[in-house]
């Protein structure tokens, strides 16, 4: 066909533009890793090279891991995100099941409450929840980082949608087999809605791992800081004026999610875009 030559040209142009945008998108990541490998002197020489002339990676990463408790920040992230996720699923799945499959008094009112919850951005709740945390005496503890997120309106909404697609016959059969309603939630509905559970888990973990706003308000003690707050504290310390260790710390904090993303791209993209669609 005559379209062959222009076709090749178009394909070439496609790659040229996409490679350009891709390298701009990747630039901050590349620069961060590059600086984390270099000694301070080399940073200030102002060279374009990605790799250092004199490798300083071990020194930089050692300082990031010892001068500031970066491992502690990561551990805090795991504790906080894990607790939030478990609580959210425990609270949301039964409610979503009742909303999807049971008829009861106040069902419409509860669903309206879920929709209102979806409408309210979390930053709006920060002030009253800060006062509540203060009254309960839990500010500056793990509990303060976790309690605002015990229930997720998005979680209830997503699970309800998924549970609705599961045929009623399966619920009836489970009842005939003698399963209680609680057992139906955990042994029938949740396993059958696994894709929704995975998507929600990714959304929940990524959003809370990356959240800076609430931790900034809720905790002051360094040993409680989740990763984003930790990296801010790192920058304010003495080592933070040193580019190498600071970039090493930032790399260590960004790495877990990036690695998980590369391993399970499709799930991540699905979970995170569904979350934004809420």
């Amino acid at each position, binding site marked *: 066909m005559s379209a062959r030559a222009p076709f090749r040209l178009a394909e070439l142009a496609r790659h040229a533009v996409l490679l350009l945008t891709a390298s701009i998108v990747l630039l*901050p990541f590349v620069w961060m890793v590059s600086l984390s490998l270099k000694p301070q002197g080399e940073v200030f020489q102002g060279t374009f090279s990605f790799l250092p002339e004199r490798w300083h990676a071990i020194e930089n990463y050692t300082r990031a891991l010892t001068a500031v408790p970066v491992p502690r920040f990561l551990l805090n992230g795991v504790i906080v995100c894990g607790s939030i996720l478990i609580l959210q699923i425990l609270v949301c799945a039964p409610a979503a099941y009742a909303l999807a499959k049971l008829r009861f008094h106040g069902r419409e009112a509860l669903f309206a409450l879920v929709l209102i919850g979806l409408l309210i951005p979390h930053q709006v709740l920060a002030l009253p929840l800060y006062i509540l945390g203060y009254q309960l005496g839990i500010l500056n503890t793990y509990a303060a980082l976790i309690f605002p997120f015990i229930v997720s309106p998005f979680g209830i909404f997503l699970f309800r949608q998924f549970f609705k697609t599961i045929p009623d016959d399966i619920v009836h059969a489970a009842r005939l087999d003698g399963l209680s309603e609680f057992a139906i939630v955990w042994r029938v509905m949740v396993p059958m809605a696994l894709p929704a559970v995975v998507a929600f888990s990714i959304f929940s973990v990524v959003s809370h791992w990356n959240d800076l706003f609430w931790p900034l308000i809720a905790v002051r003690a360094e040993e409680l800081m989740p990763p984003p707050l930790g990296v801010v504290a790192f920058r304010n310390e003495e080592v933070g004026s040193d580019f190498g260790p600071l970039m090493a710390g930032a790399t260590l904090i960004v790495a877990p999610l990036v690695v998980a993303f590369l391993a399970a791209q499709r799930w991540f993209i699905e979970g995170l875009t569904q979350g934004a669609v809420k």
Partner: protein
Amino acid sequence: MSATAQAPAPCANLPLSIRRVRQAETAVAHALVGPALFFLLTLFLLPTVAVFVIAATDWRFGARSLSFVGLANFAELFRDPLFLISLRNTAIYTLIVVPATTGLGLLVALLIEGGRSFRAFYRAVHFLPYMATLAAMAIAWEALLHPSVGLINQILRAAGLPTANWLRESATVLPVLAVIGVWKNLGFAMVMFLAGLKSIPCELLDAADIDGADSWLDRLRTVTLPLLGPVSMFVLIVTALRAFETFDTVKILTQGGPGKASETLLYTLYMESFEYLRTGYGAAVTVVFLLIVAALTLTQARMIDRRVHYT
């Protein structure tokens, strides 16, 4: 006789037994929704009501007394130059981020769908910033933008172009933060457009081809772009919501400076409520923030409804 007397009995019993089953179902359901209901009330509904109530007081966190001042906080808010600057900055930031993110997202999605090779690779790379921890990446951006050793200024210097202290000059700070905002949200827009492009039936493009829309550009103009209308609307609104919620980069990179050149709404909210502890005033800022975000979200919900109707 006795048979006729007893005959109605099962009929009378039936509604009763159904009622019992219903009651049992309601009891179980209440047990199932109990925790969710409790936390939705205490962590969402009541706090939201509380924000409106606090906004009508002159309370300062820690003070023993407070008095109701009605709408005085709001009156002060709209005379407060700082708040007005903050509102204006947020609007400018949003007006840069939203069209740029949507336009670039569409371009990247069209290019990725336009060929067969390296689709997954390009998609993954462009999506990466959307999920990377922004607080840490802000620090990487700070290094890139560093006035003397930052890569951006090094490149400009090598090319003989003028450099700038990007985050410390009032003319450049807001556009630079907006660039970071575009960088962050581009991947989301791209993924939404990719999904939109996949849902366009091939027959429509073939039909357009037969009808004389020969070039790729013709088909783009007559079929692809009009069908992407709903997705574009959706991307515009979600990106606008994201832009209004910008906080991390401002807090870490500029603290609203220099002067007040990068003061944004959520940063003002944070400072008034949690640094200056002007609780009543902070609550008033929060109410304004909530109203803007709720208006955008409701528009988005109506768009989704409409889309459901014509697909």
